[in-house]
């Protein structure tokens, strides 16, 4: 999955640690999400979408469209 979390965070001027606090996760998790090493669970993906007031599909896109 590709995501635009890093860009959205930068737009807000937040650090990874601050975003981690807002999402109630670790900074390590935010880093893993931003670098694409980890795809979040649905509840976390919804929390991210809610925080940035955007639909999930605008934040997360599959690397390749599957049938």
């Amino acid at each position, binding site marked *: 999955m590709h995501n635009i979390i890093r860009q959205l965070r930068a737009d807000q001027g937040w650090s990874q*640690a601050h975003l981690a606090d807002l999402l*109630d996760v*670790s*900074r390590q*998790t935010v880093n893993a999400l931003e670098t694409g*090493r*980890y795809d979040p669970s649905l509840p976390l993906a919804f929390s991210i979408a809610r925080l940035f007031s955007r639909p999930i599909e605008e934040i997360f896109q599959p690397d390749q469209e599957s049938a």
Partner: protein
Amino acid sequence: MERGLKEKRSYSVYRKELWLAIAVYIVLLMGAIRLARPMDDSILRTALLVSPMIGFGLMIRAIVRHVARIDEYQRLRMLESFSIAMAITGAVTFTYGFLETAGFPKVSMFSVWIVMGASWALVCGARALRDR
């Protein structure tokens, strides 16, 4: 890089709970060695000798609470690292078992703890370096 406030608090609580449990274990262990060892066989002696496990129980409690506090990614990483560390521990201990048959000195079963801890540290360190 800096941890978030909630993460810092979570790790701080874990450290406090774990060190308290270790302290309880050490105090009870010292008590068991001093009081129970010289005693004659009895239920009280047995209970005193096994009493350090109360501290061990508190350690388990601290770890369970910590695993419940950490987030989904940390939990996944922990499980992966633990699985790899256990596989390494198995390989090392089995290898040494064969070497003992070949004449190497007998080593206490307690050394498995050391291999387990060292494997865990090695895996965590290697993964941290790789993720940089």
